[in-house]
């Protein structure tokens, strides 16, 4: 089937340049080219330097069990917008290894660590290849298909023990620990010594910048978190300090890890929808949007027009709610403890009321279906939204703007702090407000338009300095643009059905792969799914924006004070449900 579709010219160019090492992915439904492992750096360098694909969006892997193959999948984009380039590298399951791309694309750092952790694929040349999400004594690599979780029942849902002979019982009781845990076979908690922190501290000291030839002064490691109000959840920053200045910093995460992707591969396609709500729990509508879009791409269906308008409206309301909250909590990090945050939450409350009325839940919306939506929006709700965007929200934004933007404490603490340049931001694969605050006008709603964004009139907000203050300003600007978008949507929303066909609980998804992405409040939210034509996905990967934005955190923090690190983390705006997945 794929023989008839001509490859995009980028791939032809690559195959011409590297005839021996780049071949076509021949499987039906699959795009992209297969690259030999040892020539990956050369091909990537060509892509980056000659062809302008400077943005490495996602690195992930697919397990082809029972075949002896693991695929490593890379998605590259241009930071000026446009279609993707997808590279695949096949490695064997026994001793999987391939060259790391961290030298060319520093944004691959955390993602390669994640692939190593979950698949056991070694990236040669990665300077700090440690486990990232699982604990260091963990037995095996959980995303491999032959790895089974402690309460393993079957490969795929629905489980057979639920019907017609179901017995209400706690599966946890089957486990000797009476919980959903397991330990390596010869694990003895009394003898076991964790070397993970040691390894992390060593990597903190050994990386460049830390070893100066100058006068040796005492350097001190300070752990911020994991339980600390400034980390917005269970997240830890290990900072290497000289005096009070940060020399190096490592994010430590995984405390909230639940292996969302493994759960997703057990689930049927539709069952994943409510799980996506729990990724970035402040923006569940966006998460739904991205997942629905990706699977629809694979299924080859499109939602009706009214549904598209409602989707965009909900996604923009989510963006407003999320940005308002971020702004409030940035002040929290600056020391204006909770009063401004709670004032900022007021308008979010009204938006959540709308979500409750429309979707049935304030935060875990579960509102999108493949080819449409769960239910229509009543005229009453539309009237409420209009009232909100015409009166209340603009007033609130003006108020925030008036009181915060020129507040001298905010300016002193934020201006010139946590600077990341445009080149660095692209190299670190940062996305969303962070990238745009550095002056890169990269917004997927314009760069790679989806849904009806192409027909809407709004601006991509950018600032030049790339500091905390600019990231705050970009968020304020984006709220204004979102209000503008919602006004247009309300003016134009057509009558009609909200679902293409009938919503089915077993979606028929043809074999193939699909990478869909939306501009979430925190940046580029991507989903990579592989289908075998079965009721369950073979691979389900989430490119979580706040996880990848953390790659550049060390760069942003270097040279600033400890107190600034808190502010910088606040401006990066992480949501731990998404970071840890």
């Amino acid at each position, binding site marked *: 089937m794929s023989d008839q579709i001509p490859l995009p010219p980028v791939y032809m160019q690559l195959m011409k340049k590297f005839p021996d090492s780049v071949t076509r992915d021949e499987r039906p439904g699959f795009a992209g080219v297969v690259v030999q492992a040892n020539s990956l750096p050369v091909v990537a360098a060509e892509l980056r330097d000659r062809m302008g694909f400077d943005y490495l969006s996602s690195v992930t892997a697919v397990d082809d069990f029972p075949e002896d193959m693991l695929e490593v999948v890379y998605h590259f984009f241009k930071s000026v917008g446009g279609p993707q380039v997808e590279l695949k590298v096949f490695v064997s399951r026994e001793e999987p290894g391939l060259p790391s791309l961290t030298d060319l694309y520093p944004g691959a750092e955390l993602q390669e660590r994640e692939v190593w952790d979950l698949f056991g694929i070694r990236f040669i040349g990665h300077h700090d290849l440690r486990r990232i999400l699982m604990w260091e004594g963990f037995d095996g690599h959980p995303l491999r298909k032959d790895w089974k979780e402690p309460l393993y029942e079957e490969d795929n849902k629905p489980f057979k023990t639920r019907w017609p002979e*179901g017995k209400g019982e706690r599966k946890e009781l089957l486990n000797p620990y009476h919980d959903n845990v397991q330990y390596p076979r010869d694990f003895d908690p009394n003898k076991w010594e964790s070397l993970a922190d040691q390894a992390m501290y060593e990597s903190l000291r050994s990386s460049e910048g830390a070893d100066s030839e100058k006068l040796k002064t005492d350097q001190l490691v300070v752990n911020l978190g994991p339980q600390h109000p400034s980390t917005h959840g269970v997240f830890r920053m290990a900072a290497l300090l000289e005096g009070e200045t940060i020399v190096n910093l490592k994010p430590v995460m995984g405390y909230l890890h639940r292996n969302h992707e493994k759960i997703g591969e057990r689930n049927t396609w539709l069952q994943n929808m409510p799980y996506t709500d729990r990724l970035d729990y402040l923006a569940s509508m966006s998460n739904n949007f991205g997942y629905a879009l990706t699977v629809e791409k694979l299924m080859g269906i499109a939602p009706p027009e009214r549904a598209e308008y409602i989707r965009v409206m909900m996604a923009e309301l989510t963006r407003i709610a999320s940005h308002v909250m971020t702004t409030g909590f940035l002040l929290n990090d600056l020391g204006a403890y909770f009063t401004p945050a709670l004032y900022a939450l007021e308008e979010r409350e009204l938006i959540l009321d709308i979500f409750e009325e429309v979707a049935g839940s304030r935060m875990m919306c579960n509102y999108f279906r493949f080819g449409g939506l769960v239910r229509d929006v009543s005229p009453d709700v539309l009237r409420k939204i209009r009232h909100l965007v015409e009166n209340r929200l603009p007033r609130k934004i003006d108020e925030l703007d008036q009181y915060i933007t020129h507040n001298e404490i905010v300016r002193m603490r934020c201006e010139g702090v946590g600077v990341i340049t445009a080149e660095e931001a692209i190299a670190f694969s940062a996305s969303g407000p962070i990238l745009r605050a550095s002056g890169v006008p990269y917004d997927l709603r314009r760069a790679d338009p989806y849904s009806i964004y192409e027909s809407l009139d709004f601006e991509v907000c950018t600032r030049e300095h790339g500091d905390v203050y600019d990231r705050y300003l970009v968020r304020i600007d984006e709220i204004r643009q979102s209000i503008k978008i919602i006004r247009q949507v309300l003016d134009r929303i057509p009558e009609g059905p909200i679902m293409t066909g009938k919503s089915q609980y077993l979606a028929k998804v043809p074999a193939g792969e699909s990478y869909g992405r939306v501009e979430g409040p925190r940046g580029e939210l991507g989903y990579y799914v592989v289908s075998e034509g079965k009721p369950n996905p073979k691979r389900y990967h989430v490119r979580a924006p706040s996880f990848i934005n953390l790659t550049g955190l060390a760069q942003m923090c270097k040279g600033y004070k400890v107190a600034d690190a808190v502010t910088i983390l606040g401006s990066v705006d992480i949501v731990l449900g998404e970071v840890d997945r």
Partner: protein
Amino acid sequence: MNGLGILKGLWITLKHFFATYFTDLFYNRKKADADEKRGMVDSPGLFTVQYPEEVLQPNEEFRVIPFLVYETDEKGDKKYRCTSCGICAKVCPTQCIFITRSKDPETGRPVPYPAEYYIDADKCMNCGSCAEFCPFDAIKMDHDFEMATYERGNSHIYSMEQLGKPVEYYAKIRPVNYALEEAAKKEKANAG
């Protein structure tokens, strides 16, 4: 000028304080419900209500743990709408629904009625898929969110008796949906 920002910030707090005070004064005189008082689109003051003294009424679509709809016949027996087709157990993302199908005691053939029905409320994620895909309108999402218990052992696995609620209750909490479903049923009966 230094210090102006702080004064501006304090001014917001002061404004909120008086706005809340006067709104409450106004609505208390009218003896309005908590819903009308606070958290409205036009309310200038704070949004907080004094739960549990004041309780906001949830919207119609609001969903927590499902319940099984039953109808009461003349003798006062519960007649569940469920046919134990198992669709809810199949779509459930967390697989927290357990159904046992009834069997005819004489022939041993399956009967379209549940013998047992359990929902593990600890696992249920309130997504509403079961209610959405039930072809018999037999399972619906509840509004009762006050489910705290003193014991976490087995009391959170709800049995059929605990899950059952009369159809009148459903009509009360979701009047619009109930009316729509009844109209559709009537139309179907007329057509048939």
